[in-house]
């Protein structure tokens, strides 16, 4: 089983007629994802390589029965696009857009919580989600993932996720679902959401989590793991040597004063019984060992 998406998930792409949306939307379709429509205001009636384009998400949902949306629009319009999808009844929104102002994100998150509790947002500023062999929404390269499980991956970083997928696949260890929650300060879906879904998924037998400096989501995840998680977890946290007060590429990757250090996160995870590794290669190797001993 996979979490959040599967082979029956019907996806629309908001921004399908733009460069990024077209490139990744078509790649997702090529992977086998059911990409059933696109949305670009004013371009309804057109198509992108056979994928029909609609003026609004509501039109697209009515015509296609889509339940998921892939938002690939510029930062200025991204939160409006997310809320439009939620208002049209979309239950799973993946937003890859990088560079959304933090206040827009915080407002959007709270509107979703208050007005659209049935919608889950993944991202913004995330690589998306891939359930190997079933569904790929976002920018992950499908060929580095391996179907069949038993590992679930959840990560704040794109390239480190790819590295993890690659290390596991090269050793013949497959994945159930790989979720990139993104590097922004107000992620729609957090570690705990994914850990809980993996814990409930019978096919996922071990979980790899990749964190980084900034915020306290890893610490919160550690608390949740020690109380609820029965499956083994391997973790890696990037940014041990990051200087305080600087945003390390991701808007959310910043040590503020003494808060958000990699050290504190690693200590919290270790105390929760998580197997904490020092680099992504070691995380891959540790996970392969665990899977082989299951």
């Amino acid at each position, binding site marked *: 089983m996979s979490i959040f998406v599967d082979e029956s998930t019907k996806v629309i792409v908001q921004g399908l007629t733009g460069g990024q949306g077209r490139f990744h939307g078509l*790649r997702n379709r090529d992977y086998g994802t059911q990409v059933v429509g696109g949305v670009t205001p004013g371009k309804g009636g057109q198509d992108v390589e056979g994928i029909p384009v609609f003026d609004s998400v509501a039109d697209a949902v009515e015509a296609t029965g889509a339940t998921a949306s892939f938002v690939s629009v510029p*930062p*200025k319009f991204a939160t409006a696009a997310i809320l439009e999808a939620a208002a049209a009844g979309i239950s799973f929104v993946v937003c890859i857009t990088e*560079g*959304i*102002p*933090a*206040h827009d994100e*915080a*407002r959007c*998150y*709270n*509107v979703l919580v*208050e007005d659209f509790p049935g919608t889950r947002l993944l991202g913004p500023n995330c690589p998306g989600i891939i359930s190997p062999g079933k569904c790929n929404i976002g*920018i*992950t*390269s499908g060929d*580095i993932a391996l179907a069949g499980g038993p590992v679930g991956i959840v*990560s*704040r*970083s*794109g*390239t*480190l*996720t*790819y*590295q993890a997928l*690659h290390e596991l696949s090269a050793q013949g260890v497959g994945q159930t679902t790989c979720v990139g929650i993104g*590097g922004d*300060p*107000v992620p729609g879906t957090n570690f705990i959401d994914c850990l809980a879904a993996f814990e409930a998924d019978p096919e996922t037998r071990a979980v790899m989590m*990749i964190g*980084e*400096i*900034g*915020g*306290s*989501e890893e610490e*919160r995840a550690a608390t949740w793991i020690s109380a609820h998680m029965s499956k083994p977890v391997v973790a*890696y946290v*990037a*940014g*041990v*040597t*990051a*200087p305080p*007060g*600087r945003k*390390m*590429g*991701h*808007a*959310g*990757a910043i040590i503020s*004063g*003494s808060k958000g250090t990699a050290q504190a996160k690693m200590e919290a995870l270790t105390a929760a019984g998580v197997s904490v590794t*020092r*680099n*992504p*290669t070691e995380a891959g190797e540790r996970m392969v060992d665990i899977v082989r001993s299951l």
Partner: protein
Amino acid sequence: MDLFEYQGKQYFARFGIPVSPGGVAETVDEAVAVAESAGYPVVVKAQVKVGGRGKAGGIKLASNADEVRTHAGAILGMDIKGHVVRRIWVENASDIASEYYASFTLDRPNKVHLGMLSSEGGVEIEEVAANNPDAIARIAIDPVRGLSLEAARKWVDEAELDEAAREQASELLVKLYTCYVEGDCDLAEINPLILTTDGRVHALDAKVTLDENATFRHPEWAEFSATETEDPREQLAKEKGLNYIGLDGSVGIIANGAGLAMSTLDVVNQVGGSAANFLDIGGGANADVMAAALEVINSDPKVKAIFVNIFGGITRVDEVAKGVLEALERVHIAAPIVLRLDGTNAVAGRAILEPHLSERLVALPTMVEAAKRAVALAGS
């Protein structure tokens, strides 16, 4: 982007937050001119983006033009914790009755805005939080609803500010919240917020961090970014549109993706080296981007070896390898380069590099091995 105090105060003033009359100066003569119009006595304050400037002698009181000359002359050019003072802020000195603390920031775990207010201002808020947490009144603000004057009044009562300050402080806090939200701040902090002996409440300091993701709707921020960084490497990287942070080590780092770049710094450190920089070249590691990245690294005299760490996803490693070779034809690089190319089409990528490899251009298959080699090269 962190603002200098004077920029923060000018930013506050746009939102109607009261500050002392004053101005910025880059020379002693300018300082005297500002002091004359602000009115004596004045405070002369070093403009640096680092705490502890008072202890370092960067804040002085002056009661006449001669004293302004003396203090401005001493402070301009002063080195405060590695930050050279290029500007000073001169403002009319206030008679302080009470000092408070006020700030707005994002409460990341709860995904709401967090206001913090304390009647114990003028000291590090982290110290207050550690020693006397009850002295900080916190308010959680729903970003959809915002902060009303009524809620601000309750908050001010709870913080037990002096009676004489409460109404003015409430109004000021609503303005500070507007500045925080409409001004797209990550942090809007006043420490100290003061009550003067003649009963006025205003901001005696300003600490503002702007959210660079909102730059598109703030053309007025251009003046801030012009003075933002003093590191010439960061200046060059910015001109080239690269995501670069200067550090102090000897191994130059180029990686694709923020997480991988951070991880590369960590691995270099684990094997006994130290990174000269953080540099994320993003997804499209083509020849143009690679050449720009190598040029920036090459401008750093401390760099003794370069570690290029690329994981190919959609960007295939064979394309990256071609990009690296093309970039090397365009720019002459002083330091030896260690490449670690992994991911999609890695074998083809390494084959492209093979004929070009030498002692000065090394390719290794794993991050740890490549880091070890780069550190060894930097050390010899």
